[in-house]
């Protein structure tokens, strides 16, 4: 499903950090994982994924390392850093508050759409 760009912009880094908090992954694996975990509701455009990863790396929230997979392919694996974990924790609290407030505003109508 395609979300409004601005709506996705704030959520995407949290989603990536959350997925990576469960284990390190390379780019393709990560995009597949996001789709799978969100039951294909949340799909990051492939063109968005890599710049997003590079940005998170610049903020030292994730770390990328080249490794040769058992298949012989070289891949860049991304893992969450301790700083990333702290950020994720803080973002999750904010998201929870956001959902709570959205629920209050929309009431049951949000669930019925």
């Amino acid at each position: 499903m395609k979300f409004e760009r601005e709506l996705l912009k704030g959520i995407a880094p949290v989603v990536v950090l959350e997925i990576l908090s469960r284990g390190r992954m390379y780019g393709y694996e990560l995009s597949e994982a996001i789709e799978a975990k969100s039951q294909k509701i949340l799909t990051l455009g492939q063109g968005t994924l890599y710049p997003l990863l590079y940005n998170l790396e610049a903020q030292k929230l994730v770390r990328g390392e080249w490794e040769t997979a058992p298949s012989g392919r070289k891949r860049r694996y991304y893992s969450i850093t301790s700083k990333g974990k702290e950020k994720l924790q803080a973002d999750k609290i904010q998201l929870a508050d956001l959902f709570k407030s959205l629920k209050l505003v929309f009431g049951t109508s949000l669930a019925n759409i």
Partner: protein
Amino acid sequence: MRKEKEQFGFENLPDCAADYIRLVIKKMRWRKKARKDVQAELIAHFEDVLKDCKTIEEKEGTAKELISNFGDAKVLAVLARRAKKRCQPMWVKILIHSLQILGIIILYIAICAGYIGIGKPNISANYVEWLNDYVRGGRNESLNSAPMIKKAAEISIDEPNWLKESNASWPSDFNEIQLKELENWLAQNTEVLETLRNALKKPYYWNIYDTNESDFIKGGPFGSLMKSLSKQRMLARAMNWQVRYSAYKNNTEDAINDAISLCKFGHRMQGNGLLIEQLVGIAIEAVGYSTIFDILDKTTLSAEHLEKMQQFIQQEQDDTVIDIQAEKACLYDFIQRNFTDDGKGGGRPIRQGIGFAGKNLPDLIFNILTFNLPSKKEIIEKIDNIYDIYQRGFDVADMKNIEEQYNKTTQNESLLLQILTPALGKVATLSWRAKTDGDGLIATLVILRYYKQTGKYPDNLEELLNKGFIKRIPFDAFRNGPLTYRKTDTSFILYSFGEDFDDDGGAPSRWGTGKEGGDQVFWPVVHPAKKCK
């Protein structure tokens, strides 16, 4: 093609995917390592997506779908570049920004340097030719003593080294061997001194400057002049010793005539040539005066001899005015060679002309960097104004006020003018020293004659004027008033205040420049050992 694909890791990708990735990398325009990383990551991503495709067609179709999912290659490239840039460590970012700023500064400085370094001057005037016409002043060449003086200087024999280093002022100070050597040296220069005497029968002295090289600064007129002036100073020293030797041998008539020639020699060189010539002239004239003072001190002259010398010095004193127009021409030449020319008298400084752009180094740099450069017209006007003020300093005898005026004039001027103009001030001081020296000598000659004729010294200088011995009261430029005269028990004292502008009661010093000031004492004659306070 296949080889190229293998080389860059595209061998497992369909052409459309390889082209897409290449385009992204090309548009990224960032560091090679970052581009290589992104390329490898995209290739791995495409390979992962395409790994389950069985046929080439299927691969092509899936790749196209993926490309469309990735979106516009340019947008991806830009986003990747921005993100990769953010990945740089802080020190690298600071370093890069610093280098960028430094680069901009260097570029700006290069532009400024180019602005002052590039530009064509318009050499329209030959100031050396102008100078030759100016110093000659339309006179006939047969009236010029300079060529004969130069000839005499060239063939003169240098004085012995021991004499150069000696402090002695009179032949009686030498031992027998030294006296013999002095006589030999003077004998070797007999023809030279005779040539000088004959030359000085001609009423004028003007140099003929070498026009082969018209650039003053490159040495045009100066090159040969400096060598020639040095020889002329040697010639003056020979004449100086000839005078002293003649007086010592009681050849009073010869001594007086040669002393007058020596003063003439120095006097003629002053006038309207280059300042360096005029300075040498002042120095030679001072040697002449000093020699006459020593003759007065060591010998007894008749009233006629005293009057003869007085008449001569008086005549010379009245027509001495230092002229700095030749020096100004030198500066004009410098300007025409170091300013561009816009054809309307304007233009900007280039090369050494930049010295006119600021009053000190920081100001100069600031003005260069802000392109705030003075125009040629502006600088010429300033030079004219400053030279007018300095010329007045040569014409008006008020040394104290002149110095203050000079300082005010140059205070806020450009670096180059600040460097050049104090030299003019110094010449003015020397010129007034020479004039005061001349007046001191006239006064001494007259007072001694007065004593010979009346048997007593005058009570004051006005008495000499009232009794017709002098036409005007001898003047002290460093007091802006009469020379200081007092009768003593057996003789008299006569002095100038000197450059400290105050009365130190006749304490001898070299023009008041001693630690505690002092005065320039003309009479009684102060010998070198006692001279400097």
